[in-house]
């Protein structure tokens, strides 16, 4: 009747998942790469001012795509053709537009840095979602957990006078909200989507209430302790060096967290058990694993990770809190998690894509101020196309969203 059937619906059989790199698939990916290169060569620093080379590359990409489709790799092949058209179109636009505009918009180091900043809160939250859903508990309350992290990090930084204290309290608050989700989703066997939705409301109200109650109309103090920036002497190392020469500690933290989560989930005993519980809780129970303990641990850590994302927003980036400041990022993170097929690398790719298109969208009005608001939709349109076109069906952990009950207890 409600959401467990939804989750089952997501679980359509995945065809050749992880079936290795066939020749056709390689051709298709090659096509996608060429299509993108066709675009990139018209951009700074290359700035090819004629469209001919791009058209040639795009044409090759289309041929590769057709070959891939002929070989049965319909999705990747389609992606190659799409990339070719996109590349040709982009190259046309770029070669027709003024160099100065182009250089303002496509400043690779600034774009990269902005991409990382946009992606950071999403990455943390999506990792939180991964840990929870790998254990079989759907976490739609990421938004609320981020918001808890954002407020309590600011609150904690204010009260303890140190950003470390802020992060600590923020993360604890995220975990506290997650613990409620755990009680309802695991012990009370609630419908997980429902309880998650509920907690988003609760977090929004609670942080708003406490914010107004504590800080009134003044807002958080302007001298909140901030998470420090990390300065690296990499400015001479090309645009990537410039992009990473000054980034917030938590930006690095999010990238490290991706690796850590990967190691924990796929290379440790705990991770094996986590995945086992998420795939087949009863099986895990029969080999002596406590489904309840693992799920509680996973959901609560999930809240902590999401809260890191919130803490980045408040004391890492803008250095203050405002009501509902996560503004839907938790849902984008959820999308990134599904988009990334419940894998750390995949979700990072998704959040980077989202971050990149957000950074780009913000610069595109340079070309047409009239369309400024439409450009804002770019990240969402791209995600929609990517999900529909390239990713398609993604299979969640088999027991995701299914409450576990030991019979007769």
């Amino acid at each position, binding site marked *: 009747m409600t959401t467990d059937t*939804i989750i089952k619906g997501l679980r*359509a059989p995945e065809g050749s998942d992880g079936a290795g790199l066939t020749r056709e698939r390689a051709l298709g990916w090659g096509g996608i790469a060429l299509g993108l290169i066709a675009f990139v060569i018209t951009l700074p620093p290359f700035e090819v001012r004629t469209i001919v080379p791009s058209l040639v590359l795009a044409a090759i990409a289309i041929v590769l795509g057709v070959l891939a489709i002929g070989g049965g790799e319909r999705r990747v092949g389609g992606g190659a053709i799409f990339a070719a058209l996109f590349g040709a179109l982009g190259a046309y636009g770029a070669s027709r537009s003024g160099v100065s505009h182009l250089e303002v918009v496509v400043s690779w180091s600034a774009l990269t840095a902005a991409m990382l900043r946009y992606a950071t809160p999403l990455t943390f939250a999506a990792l939180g979602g991964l840990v929870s859903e790998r254990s079989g508990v759907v976490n739609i309350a990421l938004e609320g957990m981020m918001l808890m992290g954002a407020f309590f990090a600011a609150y904690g930084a204010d009260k303890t006078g140190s950003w470390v204290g802020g992060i600590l309290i923020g993360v604890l608050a995220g975990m506290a909200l997650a613990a409620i989700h755990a009680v309802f989703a695991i012990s009370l066997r609630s419908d997980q989507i429902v309880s998650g939705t509920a907690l988003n409301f609760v977090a929004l109200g609670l942080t708003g209430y406490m914010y107004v109650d504590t800080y009134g109309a003044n807002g958080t103090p302007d001298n909140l302790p901030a998470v420090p920036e990390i300065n690296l002497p990499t400015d001479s190392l090309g645009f990537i060096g410039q992009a990473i020469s000054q980034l917030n500690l938590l930006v690095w933290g999010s990238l490290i967290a991706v690796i850590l989560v990967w190691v924990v989930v796929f290379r440790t005993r705990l991770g094996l058990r986590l995945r086992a519980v998420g795939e087949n809780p009863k099986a895990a129970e029969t080999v002596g694993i406590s489904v309840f303990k693992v799920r509680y641990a996973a959901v609560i850590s999930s809240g902590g990770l999401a809260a890191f994302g919130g803490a980045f927003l408040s004391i890492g980036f803008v250095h203050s809190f405002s009501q509902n400041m996560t503004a839907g990022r938790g849902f984008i993170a959820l999308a990134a998690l599904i988009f990334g097929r419940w894998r750390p690398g995949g979700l990072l790719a998704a959040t980077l894509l989202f971050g990149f298109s957000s950074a780009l969208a913000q610069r595109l009005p340079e070309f047409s101020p009239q369309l400024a608001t439409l450009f804002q939709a770019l990240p*969402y349109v791209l995600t929609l196309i990517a999900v529909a076109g390239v990713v398609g069906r993604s299979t969640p952990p088999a027991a995701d969203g299914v409450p576990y009950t030991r019979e007769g207890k």
Partner: protein
Amino acid sequence: MSEQTPAGPDVPVGGPSSQPEYDLGGGATVGARLGTALKSGGVITPIITVLFSFLVGGLVVLVTGHNPIDTYKAIFDGTGLQWLFPWTSGADRSTAAINLQQTLLITGPLILLGLAVGYAFRAGLFNIGGQGQYIVGSIVAVWTGSSWAGMPHVLHVILCMLLATAAGAAWAGIAGALRAITGANEVITTIMLNWIAIWMGVYLFGLGGPLQNGTQPDVPISNDVVASAKLHVFWGDPELQGLHIGIFVALAAAFVYWILLNRSTKGYEARAVGFNPEAARYSGIKVGRTYVLVMGTCGALAGLAGSLDVLGWQFHLATNDIQGTQLAFLGIAVALLGRNTAIGTCLAALLFGALVNGTSVRNLDPAVFEPELAQNLTTVIQGLVVLFVSADVLILLIYNKLRPRRAAPAKAEVPA
């Protein structure tokens, strides 16, 4: 076995039929559990749920140093529901009437938005896209409603509502079609479509946008809906946002929803797909097409909600109306509390409509509760209501504790 085996030459004893094999263990669907809950709890369970949430909400109020009884009394007075009591009279009665009009003004679209989520739930889909569908419906309604000024009244209204409904259906249909064709998860696609609808609307009505107001070039707002497209106000002052006939449209839609879900072949297919898509496919139901139709229906309901607001009281759309609309998210809560049934959704919509209006600052004496805090408190209470809805087990437990002992186990579980 107390019953006698029916006689008949070819009829063997059909196994241990006195010991039905219940399969309500780990694999039991929430649907089944809710079904059980409804059977053993009936309408009592949701009521207990709501009461329980208010109790916890009251504790929150208490903890923050306010009087929960006064606060709730003030909130209740703000809903206008005391108009229904015959003993309310005089100035109280006219104030109550105005409040009730405002409560019902919110209730109408909430019913539709709740149904838009509920129908998808029944088909095993999660429609988070009510917001986008509502916006698209509003946009089309304001566009058509501000055009064709010379049209006959009834025709114009119906045309606007139909087009808005169709637009909402098409918008949601995108998510349904992507699910059907590429398998793209509708949770992602509907979230993305929400944002795309928002930015599209902001573009259309923003300064210099194609649908921006012709007479006020400085204001990011649409043209006004013309008189012939406005919905009739039947209660209260038509100029001061009285209650328009949209509430009946919403109630009619709820009735149609009931028919559709329980009495129509399409609804039957949707439910079959929702419960067991594989079995539905085996029996010849086209699962993909059902997804598209279901999402389309949901979008139609949400789009209709948008048109009611635009044609009923809003009459124009500003860019920040589009960015600020939160009603659809409340629709999710309404659907969940109403358990996706027609009548339940109507009642839940009334509850949430009353809650929203009752906590509005004009009705809440600042001496009882600071208005800045009240808004956030409402959000917490809404969250708690939904939270306890999710824990049917908990509520059932409480219910069974409260109820005089009757030896009827809520459910029996036997491993296969």
